C-alpha cells in the first residue's frame, strides 16, 4: 500500500500548494455584491434569497422523517415500496427546486432524464434475465423464484430410467 501513501502525500502537497497560492494572491478590490445600503434592506434580500431553500429543506426533512418512521411498521413488501417512493419524491423535490431543473432549458431536462432512462434499460434487461432464469441460479434459490415453471429442473430428479443397469 506504499503507492496509496504516496497518493495521499501528493494530494496533501497539492492542497497545501493551492492554499498557499490562493492565500498569497493579491487581494483585488472589486465592487461588492448587492448594493442595498441599509441593514434592513439587506435583511430583506437575505430573507428573499433563503426563503425558498429553507422551505424546501423543511419539506425534505419532514419526508425523511416520514420515511424513517414508516420503516418500523410491519407492512411487508409495502415497506420498501414506501421508502423508495418517498426517496423518489425527495429526489424529485431536490432536482426540481434546488438543482433548478424547474427553470432549466428543455435540453438540460432531456439530459437529466436520459441518465434515468438508461438506468431503466439496464434494470429492465438485466431483470429480464434474472427473473426468468432456470439454471445457473444461486442453488438455494432456484426453486423459490420459479415455483410453477415447467423448468428443466422438473426433469432433473426424475430418475425413472436414470441408472441403466447392464443387461
Amino acid at each position, binding site marked *: 500500500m506504499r503507492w496509496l501513501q504516496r497518493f495521499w502525500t501528493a494530494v496533501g502537497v497539492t492542497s497545501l500548494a493551492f492554499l498557499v497560492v490562493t492565500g498569497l494572491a493579491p487581494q483585488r478590490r472589486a465592487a461588492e455584491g448587492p448594493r442595498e445600503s441599509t441593514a434592513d434592506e439587506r435583511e430583506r434580500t437575505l430573507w428573499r434569497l433563503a426563503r425558498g431553500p429553507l422551505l424546501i429543506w423543511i419539506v425534505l426533512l419532514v419526508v425523511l422523517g416520514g420515511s424513517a418512521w414508516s420503516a418500523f411498521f410491519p407492512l411487508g413488501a409495502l415497506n420498501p415500496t414506501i421508502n423508495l417512493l418517498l426517496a423518489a419524491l425527495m429526489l424529485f423535490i431536490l432536482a426540481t427546486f434546488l438543482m433548478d431543473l424547474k427553470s432549466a432549458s428543455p*435540453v438540460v431536462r432531456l439530459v437529466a432524464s*436520459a*441518465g434515468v432512462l*438508461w438506468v431503466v*434499460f*439496464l434494470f429492465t*434487461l*438485466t431483470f*429480464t*434475465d*434474472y*427473473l*426468468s*432464469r*432456470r*439454471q*445457473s441460479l*444461486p442453488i*438455494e*434459490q432456484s426453486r423459490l423464484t420459479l415455483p410453477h415453471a415447467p423448468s428443466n429442473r422438473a426433469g432433473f430428479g426424475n430418475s425413472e430410467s436414470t441408472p441403466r443397469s447392464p443387461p
Partner: protein
Amino acid sequence: MTDVTLPFAPQKEVGTESFLDAGHTLISWLTTTDHKRIAILYAISITIFFFIGGIAIGLVRLELIEPSGMFLTSDGYNRLFTIHGIIMVWFFLVPSIPATMGNFLLPLMIGARDVAFPRLNLLSWYLYVGGAAFTIYVLVAGGVDTGWTFYPPFSSDYSNSHVIAAAAGVFVVGFSSIATGVNFITTTHMLRCPGMTWFRLPLFCWSMYATSLVMVLATPVLAMSLVLIVAERAFGLPVFDAAKGGDPVLFQHIFWFYSHPAVYIMILPAMGVVSEVFACFARRQVFGYTFMVYAMMAIAVIGFMVWGHHMFVAGQSQLANLVFSFLSFIVAVPSAIKVFNWTATLYRGQIGFDAPMLYALGFLGLFTIGGLTGLFLASVPIDIQVTDTYFVVAHFHFIMVGGSVSAFMAGIHYWWPKVTGRLYNEFWAKFAAITMFLGFNMTFMPQFLMGWEGMPRRYHVYPPVFQIWHVLSSGGAAILAIAYIMPLVYLTLSLRYGARAGNNPWHATGLEWQTTSPPPKHNFERRPVVIADPYMYHEIGQPRSSHDTSPPLPQGRQI
C-alpha cells in the same frame, strides 16, 4: 491543384499564424488547451499504443504457427493476448477517431473556436496518459492474464497477475473518454456557428455526437464494474462470490452493458469518416442524409440494449437470450441501411480513386462482411456453436480493424493536408491501402473457417488440424504489419518533404476546408457562417470536361 480559386475561400493572408506555430516548446504543447494540438497529442499517444498492441499480437501470431507453440509459455501467451486486447480496445480504438479527428475537426466543422471546455479536454489527455502509465507499469511488471474481459472469479480470485493495476489503467482511461464525451456533446449543442442547424451538421459531427452519447452513458458502468473487481480482489469483499450467493454472471451483465456499446464507440466515428470521404470522392451528396442521421442515433440507442448476445452460453435465461437476440437483429437494420446508402452515394458520381477513397472502399467491403457475420452471432443456435471461437475473433476484427482502422486510415489521409498543410506520397498511400485490404482478408478469413470448425479462441496450443489456417492467418498478419508501418513512414516523411497542400486540395465542401491549412489558432480568421446543407458536391451540375474537378458549393464562409 493548389492554384484553383475557390468561391468564398479565404486566401492565406500574410501573418496568419497556424496553430502549429503558436508555440514550439514542449511546455507549449503539454499545457495547450487548443483542441487541434490536443488532437495531435492524442494521435501520437495512440500511435505508440497501436504499435505496442501490434507487437503483442505479432508475437501471438508467430507463436501460433506451430500447434504446440514455439517460444512462449502458456502464461506468456495469455499475457500477450490480454495486453493486446486491453491496449487495442481502450488505448487505441476507443480514443482513435474521436480523440484525434473528433477533437481536431468537430469545432472546425461546426464553426467553433474550440471545444466547450478546453481545459477539460487537456485533462482528458492527461487522464489518458495516467491510464497509459498504469498499463505500461503492467507491461513492465509482468503483464495481466485475464483477457480484456476481466471475468470473475478468475480475475478476482484466481489470477496471479497484475489485475488491479490493469483495471486501474482502464478505469482512469475511462474517465478520459467520459471527459471527451461531455465536451463533444456540449460543443455540438452550444457552439454551432450561425446557420449550422442540426440537419446541416456534417455526418461526421453526428457520428461524434452519437459516439459521445455512448461514451458518457456507458463508460461509467465499466468503471464501476472494475471497481467491483478490485473491491473483491484487494479487499476480499464477496462481490461476485457464488458461494456467498453472489453471481459471477452479474459481472458479465455490467461489463457488457459498457463493452457492447463500446463497439459502437469504435464503429460510429468510422461511419462518420467514410460518409465524408464517400461524398467528397464521389462528388455527390450523401444518399439519404436524414436516414443516415437517424440510423446513427438508432445504433447509439438500441446499441445499449443488445449486450446480452455476449452471454448466450453464460447461463443467461432462455427468455433473455431470445430478447437479446431479437434486439441484436434490430440493431443490425440501421447498419445495413448505412451500407446501402454509401453504395447508393456512388451511383451517378464522379468517382476518384485517391488514397482516402481506397481506404473507404476497403471499409465498405470489410464492414459489410463484419456486419453480416454479426447476424450469425445474433442467432442463438449458431452463436452457441461459434461464440468463444475464432469465428467471433474474426467477426469483431472485421468490424474493429477492417471497419474502424480502415476508416481511421481513410480519415488520416483525407484530413492530413488540413492538419499538416502537406501532401503525402499518393502512390505509397494507395499501395498501402491495397496491401492493408489484402493482408487483412488473408489474416481473418481463415479465422472464420477455423472458428466454425471449432477452434476456440485464447488457445495457446491447439489441435494440429487447424495449423494450415493458423499459418495462413499469421502470414496475413505479417502483410498487415507491413501495411501499417508504411503510412507511418510516408506520412512522417511528408511532414518534411511533402508538397504544400493548399487550403482545400480535395475541393471539399465542409467548413473545415474553408480555413487555412493548417488552421490558425482560433480556427477561423473571421466568423464563419453556414449557408448551405453539407455535401453540395452536385450543385455545380454536369462536368464541363473529362477532367473537370469543379469546386463545389462550400457549406459556409467566413464573414
